[in-house]
């Protein structure tokens, strides 16, 4: 039998994207974005042209600069990484003048991730971003590494509804709400977000986890727990997308969790996602988001029905 061997292709060659998608009416040139928290333009720009991606999701920004958590912030897990950055960022004003302008100057599609310790924080950032060239906003109500805001909002449907209802009145930008998997039933916060005015959902953020140093008996990470990401969480993310798609048949979904290949991206698209984000894979392979996008673009050649749906802003299921 003649088995056709894969041909090596140059990742850096100019490429005409064949299979676009839409998320809440916003066109993406392909269905692959970076995941917030793993993308810093000043670091990634040396590795590839980030404007080639469907979108880039920037690190969470808060009203004022945040220092994040002190000490050791990371540990490794089986097929995973655990992080406890605590949303260190230089603040929204710096973001507006620096990263956002630079990314728009190269024509990247930009999703600005919004962080806060309280509703007022989120509102202040969203108000400033509303007058910015950001293409979409992603509201981070799912970070497990901050003491207030973050996951404490995303696990409480009442608090989540209150926040998203307030933000909806402030912005006409397309608003994505990023959900945490650290709940009993992810369709509950998903529904709360959508009924309060979210235009799209992204899921999943990291899973709560930790490691212990057996020489000392103490946690490896100074913050004790962190967020688990990487290939290990792929099945968790897929099940979350599947369940939210079943519960909310029309809401645009960005699938996140453990994607490091075109094949895994395809699994999320078959689960009902409109698009996907590559996160942890970029920490151990800087060009992973672009590689996944190129692999997926080729895989969709052989799946015209799925590709047609994505191009029209529809989903497989």
């Amino acid at each position, binding site marked *: 039998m003649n088995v056709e061997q*894969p041909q090596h292709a140059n*990742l850096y060659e100019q490429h005409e994207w064949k299979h676009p998608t839409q998320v809440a009416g916003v066109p993406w040139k392909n269905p692959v974005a970076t995941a917030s928290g793993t993308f810093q333009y000043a670091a990634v720009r040396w590795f590839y042209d980030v404007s080639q991606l469907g979108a880039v999701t920037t690190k969470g920004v808060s009203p004022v600069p945040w220092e994040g958590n*002190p000490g050791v*912030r*990371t540990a*490794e897990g089986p097929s995973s*990484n655990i*992080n406890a950055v605590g949303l260190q960022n230089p603040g929204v004003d710096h973001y507006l003048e620096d990263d956002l302008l630079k990314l728009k100057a190269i024509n990247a599609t930009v999703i600005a991730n919004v962080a806060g310790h309280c509703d007022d924080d989120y509102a202040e950032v969203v108000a400033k971003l509303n007058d910015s060239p950001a293409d979409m906003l992603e509201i981070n109500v799912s970070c497990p590494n901050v003491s207030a805001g973050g996951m404490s909002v995303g696990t409480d449907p009442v608090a989540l509804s209150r926040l998203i209802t307030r933000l909806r009145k402030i912005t006409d930008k397309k608003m994505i709400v990023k959900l945490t998997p650290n709940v009993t039933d992810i369709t509950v916060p998903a529904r709360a977000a959508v009924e309060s005015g979210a235009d799209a959902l992204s899921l999943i953020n990291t899973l709560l986890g930790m490691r212990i140093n057996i020489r000392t008996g103490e946690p490896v990470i100074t913050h004790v727990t962190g967020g688990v990401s990487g290939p290990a969480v792929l099945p968790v993310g897929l099940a979350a997308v599947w369940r939210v798609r079943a519960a909310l048949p029309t809401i645009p979904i960005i699938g996140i969790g453990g994607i490091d290949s075109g094949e895994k991206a395809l699994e999320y698209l078959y689960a009902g996602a409109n698009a996907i984000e590559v996160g942890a894979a970029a920490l*151990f392979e800087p060009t992973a988001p672009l590689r996944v996008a190129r692999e997926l673009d080729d895989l969709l050649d052989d799946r015209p029905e799925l590709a047609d749906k994505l191009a029209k802003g529809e989903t497989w299921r």
Partner: protein
Amino acid sequence: MTAAATFMPTVTEAREAGFFPSRHTVEVVDNRKLADGVYRLTFRDEYIAGHAKPAQFVDVYSNDPTRLMPRPFGVAEVDGDEVSLMFAVVGKGTAEFAGLHAGDTIRVMGPLGNSFGTKQAANYVLVAGGLGVPPLVRAAQYIAGLEHASSTAVFGYRNVRFGDEYVGRYADKVYSIDESEGNVITLLDRIENELMTGDKKPIILSCGPLPMMKAVAAWAAKRGIEAQLSLEQRMGCGYGTCVLCTVDTVEGRLKVCSDGPVFTREQLGWGE
């Protein structure tokens, strides 16, 4: 159905497109044991060999798909297109690297981070402890190629003096000590007069355990000597995107991988 293309990024393709080489596969040419649990791994990589400056590091990736995060190692020596690292076995990842043989392949990325500054005419005092030795062997090698500079190695070990043979090829003078005799401060005190009265002003470049480097910074501050310190921290990506390897400085919380690993004693507020 057509066969899918594979997109393994290569160094040549990245450079031709004007980008920094992403993680790529290289061939191991040598791996030898220097002391109990300490190894010197050499691989072939023209790009890293041609660009690695002192204190810059290489991310090395496990061949085991369950261990994803890179292990960062300071470059110890370059020779033609060969790059040597020295490392201690401290866990499963480094145990795997200790078992590599010539002809095996491994994935790497680099050189990463900022280097020691060696532009000034000076006698660079290379103060290292334990696994802080490798980047200072590279510093000695690099400085040996500079007309305006000389180097004095001051190395402290637990027991086996695994770096002396290597640094001895390049440094103008080599002093070393093990724990039975004292530490690098013992040595610095011993050679202080020689350093301070030499024809070139001394500048300290240092790498080693945190308490050692703090003591070195204090020793330097007391004598008004410039000190550049290469730090270690548990790292994620190694290239500045994940913000996992921070250190508190007088300028705020900075990234060891891309703002460092080299910081001045003033930046760290040490020895003030």
